[in-house]
């Protein structure tokens, strides 16, 4: 087990390295940060550009830059942003908690909603609660997140003035972004829970659990759900990646200073140090979470554990 763990962690580190390499390489294919830095100035000469390149350190060969970045990583020195020179660690220091808390809040919203709704739909298959839940989930899928977000803002922030329209301060500012993200996740998760539950409910052990006199809640949420957990968790892992990376639109609408925005802006500005570091941190997180999920497989399903 320890050996297995070490192996997986080494693999994970390797994967993160591959990701950073791909990112470092890809971003350099899309344009020169010196050009962007120099954009506002008047007449820019090649010498001016070269001066900026030297200042940014992008005049050096790719491998030197990349290894420099790796060396920095080892000492947790992520370098400085090309835009303004703020230390990247400081940027990540504010963005990471913002993103993580929002991601977890959204996951929380989605789990709290989707599991009961999905189970309800599965157990009332074909009846009206099932229909209603399925249509709700399809509406969630059909309108883009900025649409939902804007509607929430119009209602709760402008018409009713109950919640702040945007920002990252305090509990009330979490509600709308988490609900937006959460509802969109819920839309899919409900269907997923419903499908996997339908498969599980047929099993004899569900009948046995009922025969013990367990309450329907226990039967469904303990016996049946645990058997769906592998699929649900896998899905959560996939979503977590999407949440961290694809949160940009919601972050924008709610002016949430998260990693998504940071990455997006960094791509737009070809801000190599920020982008590389953000992706490194995000990929480590995503890969870490998925590794944990892989390990959890064994915890959840003892049959996999013996392998």
């Amino acid at each position, binding site marked *: 087990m320890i050996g297995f763990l070490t192996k997986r962690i080494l693999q994970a580190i390797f994967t993160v390295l591959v990701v950073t390499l791909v990112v470092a390489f890809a971003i350099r294919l899309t344009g020169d940060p010196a050009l962007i830095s120099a954009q506002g100035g008047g007449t820019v000469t090649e010498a001016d550009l070269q001066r900026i390149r030297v200042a940014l350190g992008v005049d050096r060969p790719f491998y030197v830059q990349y290894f420099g970045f790796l060396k920095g990583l080892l000492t947790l020195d992520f370098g400085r942003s090309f835009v303004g020179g703020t230390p990247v660690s400081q940027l990540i220091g504010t963005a990471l908690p913002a993103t993580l808390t929002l991601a977890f809040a959204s996951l929380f919203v989605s789990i709290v909603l989707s599991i009961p709704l999905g189970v309800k739909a599965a157990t009332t298959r074909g009846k009206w609660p099932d229909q209603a839940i399925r249509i709700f989930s399809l509406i969630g899928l059909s309108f883009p997140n900025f649409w939902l977000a804007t509607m929430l803002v*119009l209602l709760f922030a402008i018409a009713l003035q109950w919640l702040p329209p945007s920002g990252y301060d305090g509990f009330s500012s979490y509600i709308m972004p988490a609900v937006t993200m959460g509802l969109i996740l819920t839309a899919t998760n409900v269907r997923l829970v419903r499908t996997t539950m339908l498969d599980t409910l*047929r099993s004899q052990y569900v009948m046995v659990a009922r025969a013990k006199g367990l309450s329907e809640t226990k039967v469904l949420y303990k016996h049946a759900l645990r058997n769906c957990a592998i699929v649900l968790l896998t*899905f959560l892992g*996939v979503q977590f990646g999407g949440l961290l990376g694809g949160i940009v639109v919601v972050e924008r609408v709610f002016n949430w200073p998260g990693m998504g925005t940071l990455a997006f802006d960094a791509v737009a500005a070809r801000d190599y140090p920020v982008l590389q570091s953000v992706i490194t941190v995000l990929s480590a997180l995503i890969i870490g979470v998925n590794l944990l999920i892989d390990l959890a497989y064994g915890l959840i399903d003892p049959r996999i554990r013996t392998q």
Partner: protein
Amino acid sequence: MANATTSGRLNRFKAMEFVVGILLFGTICLAVLFAPLLFPDGGTKIDLAARLTAPFQSFAHVLGTDPLGRDVLARVVTGGKVSLVVGFASVVGSIFVGVAMGLVAGYYRGAWDALLMRFVDVQLALPFILLAITFFAILGGSLINTIVLLIVSQCVQYARLVRGSVLSLREREFILSARAIGVADRNIILRHLLPNLLGPVIVLATLNFANNILLESSLTFLGLGVDPTIPSWGGMLADARTYLQTAWWVSVFPGLAILLTVLGLNLLGDWLRDSLDPTGRTSR
């Protein structure tokens, strides 16, 4: 079969599901197919004088007009083509690639698993926008490239999902017994594993179908997509972003078009799944 008619209500419901699904989806497909006949100008005719006409006001613009005075109805119908093509091609493509990857990784474990799953990890960790910008910076933006990009970035989701299910399924005795009979791996995978894990895959496909129609537009929004004069549902929604407060119809109708398509597809998908799934025939 004796048990096929277990519950009349469930069956009636299923029949209805099928009929409504076919009606919805069929109508939409037909409309999109015959769009060039219905709306010869393809909803590209600009009439700045009639911009942002509200819906249900005039016969010429039943669903109103957009900020450039184009007919929303014509654009919704014409726009279906791009959206449906993107939606279908990307989803079908990623299902093929992703499910195959997941099955191989989960069933054979070992080196294949490690290799494929590391690829999946890398892919899951890469932000979509960076991928998109690089992809288009190198290859240029086009419909085909959009589809390829979506496939590349999404197939891994299927791969992971499928692998997870396979890991637990492959320890089940009915898989063992298929192995004991000598059923070739390929057939075990195709005949026994695949049908037993299709449920979640269909869910993910539904999600991605809708999502990709919307993503196609956010690519346009990033400036990576296609010609904005060619209408698409996602594009219309994206263009309507800042008009939500003043002209709801610009965003609601393309949104409804997506909703109805996804709804029709889902009804059909559920019906198909239920008809394939024996448990549905007797359980509640």
